[in-house]
């Protein structure tokens, strides 16, 4: 089995797992869910680091740095704002 097929298996199963877990998130937490998921999509930073590290030439270096900057906005901003929101959800 090639790497593509393994990747597809993983992708499909992860989607199903995500579906099971996320369907049970209550509507009251849908905004933090979205911003938290947003932060997770900042995982592209891993790809950005790989690209930036093996860049040869100005164009690829620039692309890599831009990718790292954007992904970091997502990661740092996403997790921080989600935490800020969740700290407000209190039961009195």
């Amino acid at each position, binding site marked *: 089995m090639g790497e593509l097929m393994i990747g597809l298996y993983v992708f499909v199963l992860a989607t199903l797992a995500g579906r099971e877990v996320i369907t049970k998130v209550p509507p009251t937490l849908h*905004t933090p869910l979205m911003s938290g998921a*947003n932060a*997770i999509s900042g995982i592209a930073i891993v790809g950005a680091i790989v690209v930036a590290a093996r860049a040869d030439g100005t164009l690829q270096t620039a692309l890599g740095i831009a990718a790292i900057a954007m992904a970091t906005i997502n*990661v740092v901003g996403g997790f921080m704002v989600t935490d800020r929101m969740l700290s407000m959800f209190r*039961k009195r």
Partner: protein
Amino acid sequence: METFIELVYLLSAVLFVVGLKRLQSPATARGGNALASLAMLLAIVATVVDTEILTWTGILVGVAIGGVVGGFAARRVEMTDMPQLVGIFNGFGGGASALVAIAEFTANPAIGVGTTGVTIMIGTLIGAVTFTGSFVAFAKLQGLMTGNPITFPGQNPFNLVIFLGVLFLAAASLGVGLSADPMLLFGIFLGTALLLGILIVIPIGGADMPVVISLLNSYSGLAASAAGFVIGNMVLIISGALVGASGLILTQLMCKGMNRSLANVAFGGFGGSAGVDRAQIGQRPVRRADAEAVAAELGYVNSVVVVPGYGLAVAQAQHELRKVGDLLEQRGVDVKYAIHPVAGRMPGHMNVLLAEADVSYDKLFDLDEINSDFSSTDAVLIVGANDVVNPSARDPQSIIAGMPILDVDAARRVIVMKRSLSPGFAGIDNDLFYMDHTLMFFGDAKDSMADLVREVRELA
């Protein structure tokens, strides 16, 4: 070493899933978010250890810029502006994934048709559409451009042609169909994909934004997955799939909340609709009430249900609303909040506003939980909501026919706090405003609510 790195990635993927699972309850959610950020840190550290990094300068510059911008935005954003913030973060996520795919292409423009070539095209396309689409959504929500749908004749056929053009250019960039400089073709492909993102979002407006934001959220995940296929990294594929699933579930819930299909939202050009005689709107007599009268209606009853809408967010009146709620509770009134799934501009928007104002989350109820309670409710206070309480949704002839609504008209008394009788996003009149047991409390929600706080305090 290789195996160890892969095991760290696996642990990271597991922690993402467990972190998301903890979002199933407000009590564990904050810890879940912390787990997910730990998972991210692990993945980043594993990558840095595994990758032979020749020069750190660029990487550190990128992280510094992103960290400052992201951290600043996260600290400073008003809760009312969360839809814009999440919108633009979606864009950065998509953009980052697109850039990873783009960089891989520029490293080997003659890559040709093959697994990597095709995944590069998919990653670039989804990422680019997410990037520009999210910026348009941001501009609409932030008021930088009109929030209304932007339509032109032949829009859907035009968009279809652009979409087919994008697919053709993607194939051409891989050397299929056209023989020209692959970098040039790829450049045109990228430009057209960026244009497509703009075209997809401009015809969608106002109250349909929750659907768009959810869908772009899903895309940003799919783009990350595609980038994972490009560089052969499982943790990217898994995390991207989780985000993709999350966004898709929210998209479906939002569509269900409006009883419309995704295709209808995307291609329908809904809102400000034709076929409605706008001159007729607001011409019928209503019963008006001032703050003193409303205070009396709310202060001497057993149960009050508050229905917040986008108008609450626009007026930033959530803190005053909570004060009214507190005062009523001190008087022995049972106060609950009814949240429609598409109230506001993103899923859960109202809940976050009320949480910010320190309303206890166990007093917030969604449509299914509270709809049967209205018939035994003394008074309903509607703050800046319109279409989600419009009884014409029960009329099969109505443009909003079948949309799930809060059955507020079943309550003994209905008080509507609103600036004017102007219609909501659907562009139709609301019969609720003219009913015998409805009182209209006109004014800016924040000022009106401040008046109401004062009047409730003065009740005997």
